């Protein structure tokens, strides 16, 4: 709802997934970094991963998004090597990981609990993975300082790890993983333990850091807003399967099923009567909107548990018309039944004439536009192209 754009990250001159001018190359053209092919995982009788197929590309910020128990953490842990897979193939940078133990994989993990070693100092934590590094002691110390500076903890090296705050622990966990220059950084719900303000700050910092180091980040989260803000691409998972894998904007505007639409952001669902197929798409009748054609491109799947076919639209996909402004497309009258003021936005619950339940419509609060009162008769502007049919 309040997702904001992070300020632009400093652009590295070169590095992975960038062309000669330092511009990032499109995700789709980059080489694969992680490939999962028909990955299954059983815990006894429980089928935790049900045929995962996905390709995560070089220097991509990829998110695994889903409710708890959907298998996203299990998938992350199979990539890290903490869980054996029951069948299928996991490749990292083209190499089969079947017989590679966790300590030999080119991945590093930021744990949900951060897993900072309480018996070591901050610097010792960061240097933990450098034991067999052939560099001299002084060079390693310099690398530790550099890693700490990168995560904004310059000068914290001598502190005891158990005396750090949650946000600082997370930075140490990041430095400890990134100092090893892994091909893939795995992040298991890294922001869930932080308060809201800290979380939003860390989201921005993580994006900047990822652009800066050019390492593939795989983030596990149950927070759809976090996934939308941070990711290049997102895989939405339900019950051990990937429901949809796409770019954030496509996931938001073109969800493949009602369940995905419901999980990502807010969506209004209305019952629909399907009248038949036409050249323009599907002819439907929706109480309140009347009879119209939904373009074929806007037709998605209904899930087995759905109460029949429905049409859905995002709160910002339709607008309330002020005074006698002309409707750009079609208009439908209704009555405002609830007003929720958010500062930058106002949410109106509007019952369209002829509809059973109100729909939620969001309006940006721009200068000179009044907040509408409860019970006001109003007009709603909409177009068939902003509606999605789930059938």
């Amino acid at each position, binding site marked *: 709802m309040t997702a904001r754009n992070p300020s632009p990250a400093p652009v590295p001159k070169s590095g992975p997934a960038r062309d000669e001018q330092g511009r990032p190359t499109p995700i789709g053209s980059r080489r694969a970094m992680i490939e999962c092919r028909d990955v299954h995982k059983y815990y006894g009788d429980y089928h935790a991963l049900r045929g995962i197929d996905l390709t995560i590309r070089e220097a991509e910020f990829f998110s695994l998004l889903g409710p708890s128990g959907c298998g996203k953490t299990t998938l992350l842990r199979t990539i890290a090597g903490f869980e054996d897979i029951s069948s299928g193939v996991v490749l990292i940078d083209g190499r089969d990981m079947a017989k590679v133990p966790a300590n030999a994989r080119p991945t590093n993990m930021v*744990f949900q609990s951060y897993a900072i070693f309480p018996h070591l100092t901050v610097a010792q934590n960061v240097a933990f993975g450098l034991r067999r590094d052939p560099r001299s002691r002084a060079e390693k110390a310099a690398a530790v300082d550099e890693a700490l500076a990168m995560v904004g903890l310059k000068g914290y090296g001598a502190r005891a790890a158990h005396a750090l705050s949650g946000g600082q622990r997370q930075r140490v966990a990041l430095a400890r993983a990134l100092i090893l220059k892994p091909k893939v950084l795995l992040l298991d719900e890294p922001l869930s333990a932080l308060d809201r303000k800290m979380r939003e700050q860390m989201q921005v910092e993580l994006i900047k850091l990822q652009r800066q180091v050019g390492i593939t980040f795989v983030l596990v989260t149950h927070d759809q807003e976090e996934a939308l803000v941070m990711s290049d691409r997102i895989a939405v998972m339900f019950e051990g399967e990937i429901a949809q894998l796409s770019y954030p904007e496509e996931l938001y505007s073109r969800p493949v099923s009602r369940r995905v639409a419901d999980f990502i952001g807010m969506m209004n669902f209305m019952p629909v009567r399907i009248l038949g197929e036409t050249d323009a798409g599907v002819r439907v009748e929706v109480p309140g909107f009347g009879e119209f054609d939904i373009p074929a491109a806007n037709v998605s799947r209904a899930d087995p548990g759905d109460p029949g076919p429905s049409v859905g639209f995002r709160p910002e996909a339709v607008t309330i018309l002020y005074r006698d402004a002309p409707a750009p497309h079609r208009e439908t009258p209704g009555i405002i039944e609830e007003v929720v003021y958010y500062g930058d936005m106002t949410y109106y619950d509007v019952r369209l004439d002829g509809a059973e339940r109100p729909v939620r419509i969001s309006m940006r609060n721009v200068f000179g536009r009044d907040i509408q009162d409860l019970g006001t008769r109003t007009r709603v502007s909409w177009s068939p192209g902003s509606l999605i049919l789930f059938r």
Partner: protein
Amino acid sequence: MASRSTEAGQGLRMIAPPLLYAVLMLAIPLLTILTFSFINDGYQTVIWEFTLENYAEVWADPIFRALMLRSLGVAVLVTLATVVLAFPVAYFLSFVVPPRRKAMWIFLITIPFWTSYLIRVFLWKVILGYNGVINSGLKSLGLIEQPLSFLLYNTGSIVVTLAHAYAPFAILPIYVALERIDRSLLEAGRDLGESRLMTFWRVTLPLAMPGVLAAVLIVFIPTMGDYVTPTLIGGGKIPMVANLIQKQMLAVDNKPLGSAIAVTAMVIVTLLAGLFLLLNRRFLRVRT
């Protein structure tokens, strides 16, 4: 003011029973021993004059020195054996036994405590003795002609007996320390490139150290002053410092000298324990 004094009164009432217990059972006996150690001995009585002679005698006595050193040696050996053997058991209990079986395992480990310490010590005599389990077993197998006489009545048998008697005291604190280790720390160790063995060495062991230190003290201090085992298993031939105290107190009836030996031994153990904690203080500072 009134409410504060009521609060203090409440607090006092609350701690009164343990306070009474501590005063009667710990403070008064200790103070009695301490007082006795500074007065003169008379025949079958004590002479109430302050003196440091008892301590001078203790420090000059070669027998005290020998027995103190033997007690320390035995305690060190017992502690080493107990902790080294207890660690794998505690590790197994914490990392291998599934959670729902842990209570049962702890229960099984404490079963030896159902019998008295004296009987447990005596059982070792039955096992190690001249006609004991080991000797008769070996004889019936035809491996030996004559019973082995070196099994009992020596320092080794004292160490074995004490190590067995104190095993649960070592297992439980180490187990508790291992249980408190966040398992994701071990995964982090692996994730950062270390093998299971190196992760154990660099993560598990340092984090288990508070438990190991507790086990060391819990075993070392009482074995140091053990009286029953040297008497029964050592057959009286290998007395330790507690036997010396007993002899002075009861057989010779020199209570001031006995008290001085007791206080000296106590001070030595306290200093050693303090030094041990000081050397290991970095392990105790860890908090999760």
